[in-house]
């Protein structure tokens, strides 16, 4: 999953959209997914998610994300079907009610997760923070906290990878196919990872402070994030999706 949240540069319609519109669009799709009980609508949202990824020029990432989510969802689907006992049995332990609910849950999960991940892949974190501060009047320190923590995700993934590689070279079986065993091997690594991360966070905080972090306010940013016609379109789409989710 490394790199899934990394920004992918480009100049597509979605790249040009105001970061706040992208957040609204992503959240709008999430809300619509949770409001709707309609299979057709949820499938349409899934198509919309994938289409957004394609329009944003990140085909490969979108499909990889979809495949990853599908794997998790297959597992969830089976679990749900196993545990929901109401309804009439249709096949072995599965009931019609169980299949329907499980289907809805996994579709919703995919529908709601994809837009947020895609939004992050199509928005530079600094623009997201900038727009949140300038337009949504979020205090800068909160915006900085969010962007910094997201920025550290790939840094720590790399760090973990490096520790695992070093351990593998010393004979620890990280290349095992057994996920439980792999997890048990990974747990003791959390301590060194935590120590490295505290060190890195401290350096990041110092570096930000000596570059005037505490002087920053809402007016500091050079970039303005105006809303354009394209953004009005995005908001209209959000409204339409929510209305459809309620009506259908």
């Amino acid at each position, binding site marked *: 999953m490394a790199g899934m949240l990394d920004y992918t*540069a480009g100049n597509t319609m979605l790249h040009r959209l105001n970061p706040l519109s992208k957040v609204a669009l992503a959240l709008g799709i999430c809300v619509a997914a949770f409001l709707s009980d309609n299979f057709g609508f949820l499938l349409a949202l899934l198509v919309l998610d994938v289409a957004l990824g394609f329009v944003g020029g990140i085909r490969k990432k979108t499909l990889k994300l979809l495949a990853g989510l599908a794997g998790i969802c297959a597992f969830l689907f089976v679990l749900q079907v196993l545990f929901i006992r109401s309804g009439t049995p249709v096949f072995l332990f599965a009931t019609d009610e169980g299949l329907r609910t499980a289907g809805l849950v996994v579709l919703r999960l995919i529908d709601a997760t994809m837009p947020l991940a895609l939004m992050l892949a199509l928005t530079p974190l600094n623009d997201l923070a900038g727009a949140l501060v300038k337009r949504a009047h979020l205090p800068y320190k909160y915006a900085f906290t969010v962007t*910094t923590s997201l920025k550290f995700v790939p840094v720590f993934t790399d760090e973990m990878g490096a520790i695992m590689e070093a351990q593998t070279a010393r004979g620890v079986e990280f290349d095992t196919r057994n996920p439980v065993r792999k997890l048990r091997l990974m747990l003791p690594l959390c301590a060194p990872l935590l120590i490295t991360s505290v*060190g890195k966070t401290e350096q*990041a905080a110092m*570096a930000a402070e000596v570059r*005037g972090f505490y002087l920053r306010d809402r007016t500091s940013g050079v970039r303005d994030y105006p809303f354009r016609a394209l953004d009005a379109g995005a908001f209209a789409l959000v409204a339409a999706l929510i209305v459809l989710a309620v009506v259908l």
Partner: protein
Amino acid sequence: MTTSAPIIDVKDVTFSYAGAARPALDGVSLAVAEGDFLGIIGPSGAGKSTLMYAMNGVVPHYHQGEFYGEVRLAGADTHETSLTDLSHTVATVFQDVDAQMVAAEVEDEVLFGLENFGVPHDEIPARVDEALALVGITDLRERAIASLSGGQKQKVALAAVLALRPRVLVLDEPTGALDPASSRQVFSLLADLNERSGITVVVVEQKIGLLAEYARRLAVLDEGRLAYCGERREVLAHADDLLRIGVNVPRATTLSCMLRDEGFPVGRLACNVDEAQELIEGIVA
């Protein structure tokens, strides 16, 4: 006026990190004149980074501990001046180049400090251009930082602080993660900035070869104490003692020391291969 006040004045500083058994700095006094290029060297744990932190105010503002003595930066007592205010004079490049990046793209990284320090918005584009051009990375402006090499990232970190037009630049092992060619590039850039823009440079570095070639003065630390501080050739002349401390001297310098000890007329110690060649040619002739 014959002598101007030093821009960094470290007076008898002793500092122990909270909970540490022995002081990281032990009675260190050192003055850095404006426009100087000072290299700080010493074995691991000698207190190099702590001395650098004392110079930029990170000690005592960021790291807690017992602090005795006084550090003045452009006349201001670092103890009484906030880290933010000190940052108007001194810019710092930290060791971990990845951790100190705040942005995802090169341009945003350079913008960060300029925006924070309230540089008028109409001046900012020119300052960004200038900083990028100064370190020769104008072509990287739009690039994602994650896609850059170690040397390029180091240059971005430099550009980000140079945009603030500091009077003093302190760097903690800027070539730590770099190959020899990139290390040399970073140092020749620092020397260039020092000469052309008159920026005072203080650099903590393990690679003695680079310091011997580019720094004007050297400070050698040994277990928290200042063992030597002076013009680089004067300091390097103590090759045997430096080796005892744990600092290797460039081979060219060792060679000139040996020639000197054998009674050959060595006027000036050689710091690099070219100078050594010149020296030997002089002796042979």
